[in-house]
């Protein structure tokens, strides 16, 4: 089965939506409507959109904490995403996960994982399950350049290679693990060389170019469906904002940021489509306007949504409820003092 051909204009609209959503999230974070940590994806849109465009809807995806875009790209509603940021019951994780823990089972989005590298073994497990069941699904595992020095990452790559699991490890190399540049963290000429150590085929793609990401991923996925194996992709990209909302990104220069902004993935796909006569300026403006409106509407939805009820605090502690739910028993009234209960003083010889 070939990947579903997704219209490029539609994918451009998705990239615009992600950007406008993240801008709204940033604004709402500053307004203190969103708590905790909040990591924005602005600048990296071509990576997840390109990759998702190459998948089938029943393929699995899993990612790290910079996950809003991954859920949106997979089809999670912007309302459910914004509501999750607001910690509301209507959120994609019922307000219990937050920015770093988006989940959407229906759309095969397996999280949102906030311990760096810890989800890479999970991806191997998802792929293992596909192979175990003889399914031809492929798992896409996204992570940042910071994850590649974690033990969990290395162990997972080795296991995936040993067991020939159908998984694509996609390193979104945005040059910084929080404030530490790849040069200061990683003893490699290029990140893709990590794959070679595990005998996994590796590729570098321009993560600012939607078409290049999509086409390379499509090629890899076709190969995996033919015969199960892991693959590695280093997508070279850039985040325009800091690591999280609290990071002014003073570890890099304005010139560097400007250089990447000129290579913007949305501008690039727009130019490609315009040049080919597939998109007019009016159409682009309309798409952008629509993205802005959806993002704004999602804020309204989140604001009006209820908090998760306190009575449900223990409902998601254990599956199946009952005594096993770990819910504390109701406190029984203090028992009457047992007749003749001696005090230790009296009892002592």
């Amino acid at each position, binding site marked *: 089965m070939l990947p579903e051909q997704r219209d490029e204009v539609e994918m451009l609209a998705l990239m615009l939506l992600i950007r406008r959503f993240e801008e709204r999230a940033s604004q709402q974070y500053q307004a203190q409507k969103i708590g905790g940590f909040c990591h924005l994806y602005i600048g990296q849109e071509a990576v997840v959109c390109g990759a998702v465009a190459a998948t089938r809807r029943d393929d*699995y995806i*899993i990612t790290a904490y910079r996950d809003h875009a991954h859920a949106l790209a997979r089809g999670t509603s912007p309302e459910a995403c914004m509501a999750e940021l607001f910690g509301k019951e209507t*959120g*994609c*994780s*019922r*307000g*219990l*996960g937050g920015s770093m*823990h988006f*989940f*959407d*089972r229906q759309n095969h989005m*397996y*999280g949102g*994982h906030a*311990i760096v590298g*810890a*989800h*890479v*073994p*999970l*991806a*191997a*497990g*998802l*792929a*293992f*399950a596909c192979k*175990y069941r003889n399914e031809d699904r492929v798992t896409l595992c996204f992570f940042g350049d910071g994850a590649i020095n974690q*033990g*969990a990452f*290395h*162990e*997972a790559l*080795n*296991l995936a290679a*040993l*067991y020939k699991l159908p998984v694509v490890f996609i390193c979104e190399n945005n040059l910084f693990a929080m404030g530490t540049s790849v040069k200061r963290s990683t003893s490699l000429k290029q990140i893709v060389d990590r794959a070679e150590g595990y005998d996994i085929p590796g590729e570098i793609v321009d993560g600012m170019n939607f078409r290049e990401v999509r086409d390379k991923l499509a090629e890899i996925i076709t190969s995996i469906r033919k015969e199960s194996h892991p693959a590695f992709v280093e997508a070279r990209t850039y985040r325009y904002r800091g690591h999280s909302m609290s990071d002014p990104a003073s570890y890099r220069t304005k010139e560097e940021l400007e250089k990447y902004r000129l290579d913007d993935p949305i501008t690039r796909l727009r130019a490609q489509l315009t040049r080919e006569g597939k998109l007019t300026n009016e159409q682009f403006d309309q798409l952008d306007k629509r993205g802005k409106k959806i993002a704004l509407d999602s804020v309204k939805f989140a604001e009006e949504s209820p908090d998760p009820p306190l009575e449900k605090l223990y*409902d*998601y*502690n*254990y*599956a*199946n409820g009952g*005594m*096993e739910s*770990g819910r504390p*028993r109701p406190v*029984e009234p203090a*028992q*009457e*003092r*047992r007749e003749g*209960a*001696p005090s*230790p003083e009296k*009892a*002592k*010889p």
Partner: protein
Amino acid sequence: MREITYRQALNEALAEELERDPNVFLMGEEVAEYNGAYKVSQGLLDRFGPRRIIDTPISENGFAGLGVGAAMVGLRPIIEFMTFSFSLVAFDQVVNNAPNMFTMSGGQFNIPITFRGPNGPAHQLGATHSHATECLYANAPGLKVCTPATPRDAKGLLKTAVRDNNPVLVLEAELLYSSKGMVEPPDEELLIPLGQAEVKREGSDVSIICYAQTVPLALAAAQQLEEEDISAEIVDLRSIKPLDEKAIFDSVAKTHRVVIVEQDRPFCGVGAEVCYRIQKNVFDELDAPIMRVSQEDVPMPYNEKLEKAVLPNKDKLMAAVKKVCYV
């Protein structure tokens, strides 16, 4: 009923669950071709094949996480740690990923996984290989922890663990693998619910609360105490979490004196929690302060004499019993 070893009981439980449910698979170091470091998985590779009995490299973090991922989409992995001392390398997967997923995803992903293997100090293995991890794992909401002491409990609890829709840790007792006990015949389904303690011996003067390796210790002490006219009731917790409070309180209401004998360390150990719950709920039933017998609060020494001094033993337990009985 027939007599089998603890090891054999676990082996039967694994085989029966693998047979019953095609989603169940066993993964760990040396579980397949080597037939298990402690021979618990003996013969399973021959019977179920390499698709379901899977050897791993020495990568606890990696294969524990692989299990959690596979469980997200409905497989039922049984992950063997060669010992739970090695599970510390996978602590993040067991404590962060397995139990948190159900809550973090708003109930979308439960994790039906079993982590099993020997736990607790064995014999002169030194500090790194002697961890009793029950208190560490029982502290994480979302996990269940059981600690079978007999072949029957080992079989019944492991089978229940595999069928549970949550992450369950079956902490086996390394020193008991060769111990024998009566177990129902193989054609009889044996499931022991999690969260149910068992009175292993009735008594009237003192309740000795124990689990895993301290159960045979408590039973031996009870026999000797009998000769000294002290009737000890032996309550085997079997599960640390959920904890069977009712069985504990019922026994306390009967004997009014309590000694907790545990295989872990004193500070924040299982006994501390049990002790707190007793005084909070049935304070007036107590005729004496509760005593605890546990390891000494030091890393385990290799020297045999020193190791013995660190571990709970019959003499320490009997002394504690006599103290709460004011004799």
